[in-house]
Every structure is written in structure tokens, then in C-alpha cells.
């Protein structure tokens, strides 16, 4: 520990203030807040790009964009939402909550934690700086497939900036993963063995291992792409190299990335459901093993994105099987979550609504994913709007609903005040309706043959009504996000105190004040069970009963 470090008496709170304190902070809670706030700004940017896409596709013919503008916008939308919103927001929640959940005072490497955040912010700025270079932002989708992303077809410096920004974001993720693993394995409160660890922390631990193993593959591939574009190497050229090699390397990262995005959201759901069902989680160890199984199997399914690249039949069979098998641990979790609610005393507050939204929407996304594991179906729907519908049911219906469940659940702890319930519920229902209006029709559009990534479509194909419906849905989702912003501002002004434990929850983050002091806990608690706060409340009840 640094000798220059400030020391606090166990009962005193000393919160630094001012802009400089935010620029130099190494406190995991402030870094978590920075991650969450920055990711939310990128959500608004990526969401604005999504509205432009949907406005363009609402009707046949060019509406408000040129074809090249459209290509840039949908690529930037995908890159923004995945690399700058979903993953970092979950990292932000993990940063804030994990040390509190395990009874630690901070992350293991506080300065490395700050470095991870600043690299994330600067990586995002590098990506967005591609709008101002002469040839503009990259028009290569979020997948950057070769040869489209090569120098011949995409000479723009924007593509190089895209690759450099992803390398920077990868460095940030890798440092974050090392920090999470070290913190969780070494800094748990006395008595908290791995089998007494909260499920959100488990999900962050498994995710961190996935990030650590998968990210170097993408970083290497991006370096090779940069070398092809700038140094004359031919790793991915059709003449001397292999463009399909890019797809293997890209999806070896990006399919595990789907689980990197969904596992922490599953962890949120595993925290919210027992608290709002007033019951212990059903099948704790089954959920832990399922999380580990998803983490391991997640590395064996990447080539199901490449069934149309003429893989050898044996490999195709392997990836079909592995894709179907990974649905098993996911199904186990689904059953455990449903059985957690069955027989419970459900408290239908906004976090639970979002958790139930997660279960139902992610179920649709998961099942449509199993369809795609079947080769003949995959070949029919590949690169159609079916896939766009499927991936949004997983990453929006799943992860983003999980993120909102987490924000409504933990914001009282982070801010010290509660969000307005009525506005929260209004947001949820509008978001649920808008989401389904946007993405369900895309499955039908895909089956009707509408290709993804296209800027326009002819009126004669009969796709207009479904596209128009999807556009209305997208604007409803935007309305829901706007309501969240209004709710945040209104609630911040009202400042209705949340109390230390507004939900009567089970885990250690609720044992300290809201917001927690800079040192988290005046004294490190000792843990005897999976639900330390329930234990404490139970002990109090017994004491009171004994007195009477």
C-alpha cells in the first residue's frame, strides 16, 4: 500500500470533491460511476444512430441518408453498443458492486482500475474521431470482415482508427479482467468461501476469465489487419492469405463476447429474483456450475457464425452440436430462476419487472438461436433480418433489460436516493412494447428474405408494413430511455432517502450506508452463510422475540 495513502479512522467519512478528485480517483466506486455514466452517454449516441437507421428503413426509397452514410451509421451503431455501452456498463456495475459484495475496501489494483477506465474513455473518443477524418467513419459493420475492411475497398483512415480504438478497448478490458480475478480470489471477507459468494460476483469472475482468454485473439487479429492495410502484409488477402482467417479470429473473441455481455446480466437477475420473491435462490450451486459451463462452452461455438463459409462437414457437425449443448446450462438457469419465483411472495417493483422482462425476452432470443444452430435453417436465414432480430433479443431483450434491472436495484445504494417507481414502471412497459414492436417483425422480414445491412428495399417486396412497425417500436424504445433520464433527474432533485437496505436484500453491499463511505465498511464483516444480511435480520428478530 502506498505510504502516501490517506488513513481514515473507522468511523469518519472523508469524500474528496471537485473535478480534479474525479480525474485522479482510484476509488472503485467512483470509477464504477464514471464507467456507468460514460457508457450511458454512448448508449444515447448509439441509440441516436439506431433511430437514424430505423428512420431510413421506415419506407422504401432514400429517406434522409445516402447509402454510404447509412453504411457508416450501422457500423458505428454496432461497435458503439457492444464495445462502448453494454460491456463497459456491466464493468461499471461490477466495479461498484463486487468489492462491496465480497466485503473488500477496494479493487486489488486501484490505479490499474483507473487506467482501465481512462483507456476505455479514450478508446471511445478515438473511435468517434473517425467521423472527422477526411474519408469519414468506417463503413464496415461492427464485424470488419475482409476484404471489405481491407485497403482496396475501404481506404478510409476511419477503418484504422476503428481498429486502433478496439485495441485500446481490448487493453482496457484485459486490465479490468486481471483486476476482477485478483480481487475476487484474494480479497473476500473472512468466512466467504467461493460457495458463499454472491451470484453476481460469480458471474463477474467467470466473465473476467473469458475476457482474459478471448481478448488477445481480437487484439492480434486487429494488429494483423492494421499491418495488411498499412505495411503491405497479406494475412487476410485472398491471393496470399485467407480472408476467412479474419472471421475465425474475430468470432473466437466475438462469440464469447456474447456471453461476456450476458453472464453479468444473468448475475444481476440472480440477485434481483430472490430479493423480490422473498425466497432464497433456487439451486445456487446449479447456477454457479451453469455459469462456469457457459464460460467454458462459450469458446467452442464461434464457427456457427461461419456456416456459409464452406467449413469441413465434421467441423460443421461439431459446431452444430456445441451450439445446441450450450443451451443446456442456460436452460438450467432458466428453470432455477423460475423456481425461485414459484411460491415466492413477489414484490412487483421495477427491478423485478425488468428481471421478468429479461427472462421472457432472452428466452425468445435463446430459442431462435437454437434454430440457427440447425444447418439448413442457418443457411436460409444467414445475413437476413432474422439474425438482427435474434441478436437483439439476446443483447437487448436479455442484457439491456438485465442492465436496467441492475440500475433500478443498485442505484439507491450508489446514489443514496430512490428512483421514482411510477416512472420506472412506465418506462418498463413502454420499453417492452417498443422492443417487441421493433425486433419481432425482423424475424418475419428475415424469413421473407430481407437481407441485413441493406440501405433500401423495393416497395414490391411487401416488407414496408413490417419495417414501418419496427421503426415505430424503435421510437417507443427511445421514449422509454428518455423517461429513464427524466426519472433520474427528477429523483435526483427530490432525493428521497433510500436507506441502507431499501429492498431487504441479502448481500454485503446492503450492510453499509447508501452511498457507502470511501472505505466501504467501518469494520470488515465476517460471513457465515450465503445470505449474511438475512442472517443479521433473523438474529435481530430472534432477539426481539426473546425480549418479549
Amino acid at each position: 500500500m502506498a505510504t502516501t495513502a490517506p488513513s481514515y479512522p473507522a468511523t469518519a467519512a472523508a469524500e474528496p470533491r471537485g473535478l480534479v478528485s474525479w480525474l485522479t480517483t482510484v476509488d472503485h466506486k467512483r470509477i464504477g460511476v464514471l464507467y456507468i455514466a460514460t457508457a450511458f452517454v454512448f448508449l444515447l449516441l448509439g441509440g441516436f444512430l439506431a433511430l437514424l437507421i430505423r428512420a431510413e428503413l421506415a419506407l422504401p426509397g432514400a429517406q434522409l441518408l445516402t447509402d454510404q452514410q447509412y453504411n457508416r451509421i450501422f457500423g458505428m451503431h454496432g461497435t458503439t453498443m457492444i464495445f462502448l455501452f453494454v460491456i463497459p456498463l456491466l464493468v461499471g456495475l461490477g466495479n461498484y458492486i463486487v468489492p462491496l459484495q465480497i466485503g473488500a475496501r477496494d479493487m486489488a489494483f486501484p490505479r490499474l482500475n483507473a487506467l482501465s477506465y481512462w483507456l476505455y474513455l479514450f478508446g471511445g473518443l478515438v473511435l468517434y474521431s473517425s467521423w472527422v477524418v477526411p474519408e469519414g467513419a468506417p463503413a464496415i459493420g461492427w464485424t470488419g470482415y475482409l476484404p471489405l475492411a481491407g485497403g482496396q475497398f475501404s481506404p478510409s483512415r476511419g477503418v484504422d482508427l476503428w481498429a486502433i480504438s478496439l485495441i485500446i478497448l481490448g487493453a482496457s478490458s484485459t486490465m479490468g479482467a486481471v483486476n476482477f480475478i485478483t480481487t475476487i480470489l484474494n480479497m473476500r471477507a473472512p468466512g466467504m468461501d467461493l460457495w458463499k459468494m454472491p451470484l453476481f460476483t460469480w458471474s463477474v469472475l467467470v466473465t473476467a476469465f473469458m475476457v482474459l482468454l478471448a481478448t488477445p485473439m481480437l487484439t492480434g487479429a486487429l494488429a494483423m489487419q492494421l499491418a495488411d492495410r498499412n505495411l503491405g502484409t497479406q494475412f487476410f488477402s485472398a491471393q496470399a492469405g485467407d480472408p476467412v482467417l479474419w472471421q475465425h479470429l474475430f468470432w473466437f473473441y466475438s462469440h464469447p463476447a456474447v456471453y461476456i455481455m450476458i453472464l453479468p446480466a444473468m448475475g444481476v437477475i440472480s440477485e434481483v429474483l430472490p430479493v423480490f420473491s422473498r425466497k432464497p435462490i433456487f439451486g445456487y450451486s446449479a447456477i454457479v456450475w451453469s455459469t462456469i459451463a457457459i464460460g467454458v462452452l462459450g469458446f467452442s461455438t464461434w464457427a456457427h457464425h461461419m456456416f456459409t463459409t464452406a467449413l469441413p462437414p465434421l467441423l460443421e457437425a461439431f459446431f452444430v452440436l456445441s451450439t445446441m449443448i450450450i443451451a443446456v446450462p442456460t436452460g438450467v438457469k432458466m428453470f432455477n430462476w423460475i423456481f425461485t419465483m414459484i411460491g415466492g411472495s413477489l414484490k412487483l417493483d421495477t427491478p423485478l419487472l425488468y428481471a421478468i422482462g429479461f427472462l421472457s425476452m432472452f428466452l425468445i432470443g435463446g430459442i431462435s438461436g437454437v434454430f440457427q444452430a440447425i444447418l439448413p435453417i442457418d443457411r436460409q436465414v444467414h445475413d437476413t433480418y432474422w439474425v438482427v432480430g435474434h441478436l437483439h433479443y439476446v443483447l437487448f431483450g436479455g442484457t439491456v433489460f438485465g442492465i436496467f434491472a441492475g440500475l433500478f436495484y443498485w442505484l439507491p445504494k450508489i446514489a443514496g436516493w430512490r428512483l421514482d417507481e411510477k416512472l420506472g414502471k412506465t418506462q418498463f412497459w413502454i420499453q417492452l412494447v417498443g422492443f417487441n414492436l421493433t425486433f419481432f417483425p425482423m424475424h418475419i422480414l428475415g424469413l421473407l428474405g430481407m437481407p441485413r445491412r441493406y440501405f433500401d428495399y423495393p416497395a414490391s417486396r411487401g416488407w414496408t408494413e413490417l419495417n414501418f412497425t419496427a421503426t415505430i417500436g424503435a421510437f417507443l424504445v427511445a421514449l422509454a430511455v428518455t423517461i429513464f433520464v427524466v426519472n433520474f433527474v427528477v429523483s435526483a432533485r427530490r432525493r428521497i432517502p433510500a436507506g441502507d437496505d431499501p429492498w431487504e436484500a441479502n448481500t454485503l453491499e446492503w450492510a453499509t450506508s447508501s452511498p457507502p463511505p470511501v472505505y466501504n465498511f467501518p469494520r470488515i464483516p465476517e460471513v457465515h452463510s450465503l445470505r449474511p444480511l438475512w442472517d443479521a435480520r433473523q438474529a435481530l428478530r430472534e432477539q426481539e422475540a426473546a425480549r418479549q
Partner: protein
Amino acid sequence: MSDHPNNPHDEMIHLPAPSAAPIVVAAGMTLALTGLLFPTLLVVGVTLLAIGIGMWAFGSR
């Protein structure tokens, strides 16, 4: 849940001091990498990176 017995009420809690080193290192790394495309940024980036690493190393003694 109970208080850990080796953690008496009057303990002093030591936390790491705030530091500008992470933001300087991050800015240096970003500019150095972007400098591979725009060489003038490379000089600024490497300089910042060296300063940041120095702040990090000497600030931790």
C-alpha cells in the same frame, strides 16, 4: 454476519492516494497508438507515456 475479531473498532483504514498517473498513462498510450497513423501524435504520446510511468513508479514509493 458479524464483525471480524481481528478488526478492532479503532483501526486506521489505509486506502491508496488519488493519482494522476493512470489518466496520463492512458492518454500517452492512446496518443502513441494513434500516432502510428499520425506521426506527430506519436512524439506527444510517447512523452506523456514516459511521464505517466514515471509518476506511477515514483508515486508508489
